[in-house]
């Protein structure tokens, strides 16, 4: 079996909030692997700690107020990123592990041309001379499917549409051909039709460049078409993980079930899509006050007294290879409770 490209073990990223509001345990013991060339989807509602997880990987968490607890491990190709010195870390950022952000419009620097932004990583990591950097930028624009790259290379961000900006962001991230691309809600800010195009583009680039993708989204529907495996996050923890077909065929965590019920089917109208996450009652609590016991119990239709008292560990579902499908839910020990009491 191949070695994972990225190993995250027991990652804990806390924020010390001002005014003595307590500690926000934004990411609280998350573990997962990303294998070379695969796409791993991380899914969860807003506020579950997905962004903090992704920022923690490259140590981009603002410190203070944030800090990654010792005992956490983030290993990329055998190197623990959490103990690397800043220059070694910078050599990895943008070069071997790249990132794209949710808001393409604000993630581009308004005073630089598209070409300058795209070339930045190549200049930083490969000390590419100006002329070659420009040629590389044009080549990247062509790669991400932007028409008239020779002209676009001199445009400023405000001259681009949202979808165009996200393509530029992708070009920026991929200049150095990273082995891992972390994409944090890459399509959330975009129209539905543009969303599909961007996902298609990511898919094609992944195949062409042979990179792994960590795809973060709140939308299980996006994961279904793109990811090989899925990690479902809730309240700073992994609550379920499985291969994508397995997860969709046998969702075991009530939260996953809820998310799945919320995925719009092809016949769903736009008006219904808008309110899609409301199918799970309630909302994600604040990270400074996760509920005791199972963190999902206040919103869970099956919860019983054990759920309020005891926090469930990540249990092996016993399906397929050991560990391939794991769930953080007491239902696994008492499956007959799954039928909700009338």
């Amino acid at each position, binding site marked *: 079996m191949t070695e994972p490209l990225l190993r995250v073990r027991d990652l804990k990223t806390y924020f010390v909030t001002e005014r003595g509001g307590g500690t926000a345990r934004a990411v609280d013991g998350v573990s997962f692997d990303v294998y070379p060339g695969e796409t791993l989807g991380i899914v969860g509602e807003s506020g579950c700690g997905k962004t903090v997880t992704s*920022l923690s990987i*490259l140590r*981009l968490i603002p410190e203070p107020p944030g800090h990654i607890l010792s005992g956490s491990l983030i290993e990329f190709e055998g190197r623990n990123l959490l103990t690397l010195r800043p220059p070694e870390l*910078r*050599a*990895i*950022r*943008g*070069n071997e592990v*790249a*990132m794209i*952000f949710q*808001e393409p419009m*604000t*993630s*581009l*620097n*308004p*005073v*630089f041309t598209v070409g300058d932004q795209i070339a*930045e*990583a190549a200049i*930083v*990591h490969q000390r590419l001379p100006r002329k070659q950097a420009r040629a590389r930028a044009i080549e990247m624009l062509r790669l991400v499917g932007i028409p008239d790259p020779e002209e676009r290379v001199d445009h400023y961000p*405000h001259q681009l549409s949202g979808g165009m900006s996200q393509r530029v*962001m992708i070009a*920026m991230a991929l200049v150095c051909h990273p082995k891992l691309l972390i994409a944090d809600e890459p399509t959330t800010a975009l129209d539905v039709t543009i969303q599909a195009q961007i996902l298609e583009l990511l898919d094609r680039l992944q195949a062409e460049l042979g990179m792994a993708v960590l795809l973060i989204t709140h939308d299980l529907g996006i994961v279904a078409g793109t990811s090989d495996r899925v990690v479902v996050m809730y309240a700073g923890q992994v609550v379920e993980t499985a291969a994508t077909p397995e997860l969709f065929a046998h969702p075991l965590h009530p939260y996953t079930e809820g998310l799945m019920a919320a995925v719009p089917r092809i016949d769903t109208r736009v008006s219904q899509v808008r309110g899609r996450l409301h199918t799970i009652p309630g909302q994600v609590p604040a990270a400074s006050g996760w509920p005791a016991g199972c963190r999902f119990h206040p919103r869970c239709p099956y919860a019983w007294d054990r759920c309020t008292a005891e926090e469930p560990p990540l249990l092996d579902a016993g399906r397929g290879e050991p560990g391939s499908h794991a769930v953080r839910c007491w239902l696994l020990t008492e499956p007959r409770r799954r039928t909700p009491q009338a």
Partner: protein
Amino acid sequence: MNVRAWLALLGAVAVALAAVGEARRLAARGSRGRRFFRHGTASGGLFVLAFFTTVAAAAPLVAPYPPSSMPEIVALQNAPPSLAHPLGTDVYSRDVWSRLVYGARVSLGIGALAMLVAVTLGAAAGAVAGYARRWVDPVLMRLVDVGLSMPRIFVLLMVVALWERLPVSALVLVIGLTGWFGTSRLVRAEVLSLREREFVAAARALGARPARIILRHVLPNVAAPLIVSAALGIGSVMLLEASLSFLGIGVPSPVPSWGNMIADGKDHLATAPWTSLFPGLAIAIVVMALNAVGDALRDALDPGQETA
């Protein structure tokens, strides 16, 4: 005043007009330029600045007499404006127009150079304070508080009093060194908000070093407010230089500056008002021009209007 001087003056006007025309032509291409000239006073302000800059640069051509020559100390003392002396002469029989022309070099030069020193220091301090936080920020900002709470003119008086005769270069340096506090606050505030912007996170995610992030990704975004504050600041530096020179501790006397020209004429305001009036007018016009251009720049460079 001879033919050569009149021709040179006409030439200076022509050059200034041409400069404004060229600027308008270039500006019409972009939305920023169009916003700049949408200000009614922008063209006028630009013309005034271009004119005085040209005159200062070509001073030996434009000035009919050497600035300090005293042809007839008795007969030509405080002579009113005439064809030979279009702005009259001062108490030492020196030609006021010639001194005004050479004074433009000194006054504009001090204004621009001192502002350059102040803006550079202010931008550096503000950027470091805003980006570094931790202990650097509070230390720098307390220093700025101290600097801002001291009345500048007294600080300058003190410094100047320590030297017998301050060379002009030292004057520039002293004005610059005491003038960066406000700029640093402005830059720090901008950097504080910019550093939270996603494109800064994106730059960090690309592996850029902190120095590169500040210099290449953050500071260019501060350029607009910095340019505006510099344009407005030159005016206040010129006024400061005038005050110091008026008090006799600025530019030493035989060298003409607009400030010490006013001082030279102050005892003869009743009999020879032109000796103080014209340098005073020059200062007022240039400061107004700088303010007009600064305001127009503020609108032109405002990124909030970028899509317009």
